[in-house]
């Protein structure tokens, strides 16, 4: 099976190790991974901020890049997957041809954890991680795409993981893209609540499926001087965690 990897701009530029881990996990499950070189950003920052013309520019480019094949498109982000799957068709409401293209591409897009479970039918993950682990269910993945079980199931299947569910795991961490900057006080207060819930689990490791949320949570934890380990799910599954 072949997969086109949509690595997302955040992972590409800030967390390349998450991209590497994603490739490793996919390969371990027998998938041939292609990385379409022209890819950039899905356009969500512009879309969410109301700059739809600029978001359309990014979206058109995405369609051009990923229409080269008709493989599955897999991405290690619930948020970016949601953008392509749900918002692209909406963005081109008044351009029937582009909309049809967007709908076709949208159907090929899968977030990593749901791809592993729902498409590949993965049960055994063959990974090992020692730690007490809690999971942050990012908004766009859990509510937007309705993917709630796959990440938890994968995590619980990892050898050595002592899984502990946090209170309100699906409550927003306050990231929200430009919201985190525009309404920094509110965003940070939301982050504080999230961190309180994480700390209450006494977990030593936080796992998530969206780099943006991890950036928000770990950024504030570091600032407080009391960070805990934090990984993208792909890193745990790939066994690519430096301690």
């Amino acid at each position, binding site marked *: 099976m072949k997969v086109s990897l949509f690595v997302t701009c955040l992972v590409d530029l800030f967390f390349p190790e998450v991209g590497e881990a994603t490739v490793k996990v996919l390969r371990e499950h027998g998938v041939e991974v292609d990385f379409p070189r022209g890819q950039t950003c899905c356009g969500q920052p512009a879309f969410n901020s109301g700059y739809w013309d600029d978001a359309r*520019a990014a979206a058109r480019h995405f369609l051009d890049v990923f229409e080269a094949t008709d493989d599955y498109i897999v991405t290690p982000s619930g948020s970016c997957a949601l953008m392509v799957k749900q918002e692209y068709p909406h963005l081109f409401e008044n351009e029937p041809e582009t909309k049809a293209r967007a709908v076709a591409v949208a159907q090929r897009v899968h977030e990593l954890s749901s791809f592993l479970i729902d498409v590949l039918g993965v049960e055994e993950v063959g990974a090992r991680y020692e730690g007490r682990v809690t999971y942050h269910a990012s908004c766009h993945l859990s509510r937007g795409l309705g993917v709630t079980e796959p990440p938890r199931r994968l995590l619980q299947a990892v050898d050595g993981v002592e899984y502990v569910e946090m209170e309100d795991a699906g*409550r927003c961490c306050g990231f929200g893209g430009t919201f985190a*900057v525009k309404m920094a006080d509110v965003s940070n207060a*939301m982050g504080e609540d999230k961190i309180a819930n994480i700390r209450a689990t006494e977990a030593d490791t936080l796992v998530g499926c969206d780099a943006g949320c991890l950036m928000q949570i770990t950024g504030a934890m570091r600032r407080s001087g009391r960070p805990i380990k934090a990984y993208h799910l792909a890193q745990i599954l790939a066994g690519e965690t430096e301690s």
Partner: protein
Amino acid sequence: MTTGTFTERATTAVQDTQLRDALARATVHFVDGRLTAMGELPDPDGLRDRGRAIRREVLENLDEHLATLADAVEAAGGHVHWALDGDEACRIVGQIAEQHGVELAVKAKSMTSEEIELNHVLEAQGVSVVETDLGEWIIQLAGERPSHIIAPAVHKTIEDVIELFKTATGEEGLPAEIPALTAVARRALRQRFVEAGLGISGVNFAVAETGTVILVTNEGNGRFVTSLPPVHVAIMGLEKVAPTWDDLTVLLPLLTRSATGQRMSSYVTAVTGPRRAGDIDGPQEFHLVIMDNGRSDILDSKYRESLACIRCGACLNVCPVYGEVGGHTYASTYPGPIGSVITPLLEGAESASELPWASSLCGACLDACPVRIDLPRMLIELRDEQVARGMTPRSESWAFRWFGRLTRHRFLYSLAVRVGRLLQRPLTRDDRITSAPPPLSGWTQYRDFPALAGRSFSERWEEMEKPSHD
């Protein structure tokens, strides 16, 4: 309280730990209640779908339903008044008060009357108005506006309430117990019901086929307001129609279960016209004021769906932004996600320009809404409109124009990344940035920002590509 901008008020609000604690307690209570009450239904999602379908159909054929409603109200002996805006609605109620020489009016909870600030208008013409819903009374005594559409005084602590009641009634040494405080309110308010010349209520639903106004309350005050005074005026936004009683059996449980987690509220009052021959109580006159106040503009726009709202407050309770800042920060009649959507629509984009941005777009509101209103989408649409009207900062539109260009050209994108690496160098320590210039300063004020990786994934791909082909 309502000075400054949303952002400024929010900055103050998030530092108010007492407020945040009160909000957390109340919203958790409501959310748990809703989840339990909805969860015990045999098919909660099916009921929500039916509710949504009913509300959508109502909006689609609103003219017809309103005509049916008006005819039925008149057939039952009531008077129907159409108000184009809030001023007209206030004038109508004011005239009714004047005609009957009313000195005292008692009111049941009504967000619509809050929207048009009816109390001020009546008081200006010499009518005293007493709020009889416990939460509303507290707010009235405090001289504030509701901070939640279901629980107006949700931001008040019990100590605040004891103080307010002491001033109002002169009763000393009140215990910090809700039943005792409710009893105080009851004693103070009972007499007013008897003295009042006018009862004013809102409308939760207006059943068109029989011209019946439905009021959902938990204190029974709605019943007094609509039965003891000689005249009853009910005020509704024109969207509040339920065509039939069958429809009501869908909408009513959706409302009570989503609002307070109750299978049914303690009281559901149904008022059809004035007292009939043989009735033992009820007003001699019944008036229904059907108010537009900007709603028909919404009806004709892409935001029509927002009028499907049944004002249950569930979206407020789940909203993490509301939970941090409380209702007063919104400085609008309707706070929270639904308020952020309809306030700019009702009052004009300029007056509430920050509200569409007061959301992380987490989608919790859509998830909770009993009639599945897509509030996040409408928030983004409102943002798009602001951009189109040039209401956003120029630096921002410039930045996004560049964003659009960079994302289209991989070459430019890679170049920008390289420039970024140079620029971040003086700011970076241990792969993170702790203090950055605007606009990133908003982030680094509270959080470390990760530095751009020395080598991006794209730059690493070439080496990674090989193993699979070996």
